[in-house]
């Protein structure tokens, strides 16, 4: 009675789902479907939340995270804060298939990707640069993720330095405002 094959995707990412489905229908490998399906979103910059040119950090750089997990072997490949490489899902697949590790991060993940033949290129676009300029200059770096630092991060941009006398073990944080266009 199983309804196989099947693919389920978060948010409204139809093209990624259809691509994954086409792969499942043709070759049948779930791992391929995940890699190629999520890669579609990287290329199409789904809602600005996936791929290059979205969600710039405080320094205006876009970095990418991706994970792929094989439920047959329990093998994992992942990259975190991948810089200057557009194809994060495929790099994660290379971590899975060409290393005994699970996660590579940052500049060293970029070095790995280059060694595996991926192209190095900027992930910044005019859209992401404009977004950052508005945040930095017009909105005075609001919102941001700093706390217990000075100058007051709820009013001013950095650089910040730590405040020593803080309330330890405070659970109070203002949650990140999640929407269709801003989420992990």
């Amino acid at each position, binding site marked *: *009675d*199983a*309804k*196989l*094959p*099947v*693919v*389920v*995707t*978060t*948010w*409204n*990412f*139809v093209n990624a*789902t*259809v691509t994954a*489905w086409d792969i499942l229908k043709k070759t*049948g*490998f779930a*791992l391929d*479907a*995940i*890699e190629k*399906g999520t890669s579609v979103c990287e290329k199409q910059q*789904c809602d600005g*939340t*996936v*791929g*290059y040119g979205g*969600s710039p*950090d*405080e*320094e205006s750089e876009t*970095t*990418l*995270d*991706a*994970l*792929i*997990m*094989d*439920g*047959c072997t*329990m093998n994992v490949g*992942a*990259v*975190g*804060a991948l810089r200057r490489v557009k194809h994060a899902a495929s790099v*994660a697949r290379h971590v899975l298939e060409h290393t005994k590790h699970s996660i590579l991060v*940052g500049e060293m993940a970029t070095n790995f990707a280059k060694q595996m033949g991926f192209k190095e290129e900027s992930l910044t676009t005019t859209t992401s640069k404009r*977004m950052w300029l508005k*945040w930095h200059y017009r909105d005075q770096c609001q919102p941001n*993720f700093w706390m217990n630092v000075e100058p007051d991060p709820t009013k001013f941009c950095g650089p910040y330095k730590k405040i020593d006398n803080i309330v330890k073990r405070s659970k109070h944080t203002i*949650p*990140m*405002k999640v*929407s269709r266009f*801003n*989420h*992990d």
Partner: protein
Amino acid sequence: TIGMIAVDKQGNVAAGTSTNGAKFKIPGRIGDSPIPGSGAYADNAVGGATATGDGDIMLRFLPSFLAVEEMRRGASPTDAARTAVNRIAEHYPDFMGAVIALRNDGEYGAACHGLGDEPFPFVVKDITMTKFKIEKINC
């Protein structure tokens, strides 16, 4: 973030994520997406799950792993996703996020928290459907 779970004709389960993370994060920050058990998890014996939302909070609770473990214990995918979301909400009532779960027989479900009046959408395609389906759940 895109989170995706797939089961192929042979019953192999895979899951994954891809994201550019939170806007205006402190450089070096990663969220839940690249963390196994948090952003996604898969086990052929059970199924898979993936999560989306506030990654700084969600990764502390490994919601994808929890959802798969709940399904292993016999919970439906919807109940498993709800349990994973509720575990986070117990500690962070204001957090925003969602979990989707897919059993290895093709049954699926989802749960979300904190998205206000906006329903959480997800896309499904299985062998019984002529076209993909966009499902929406209210938090």
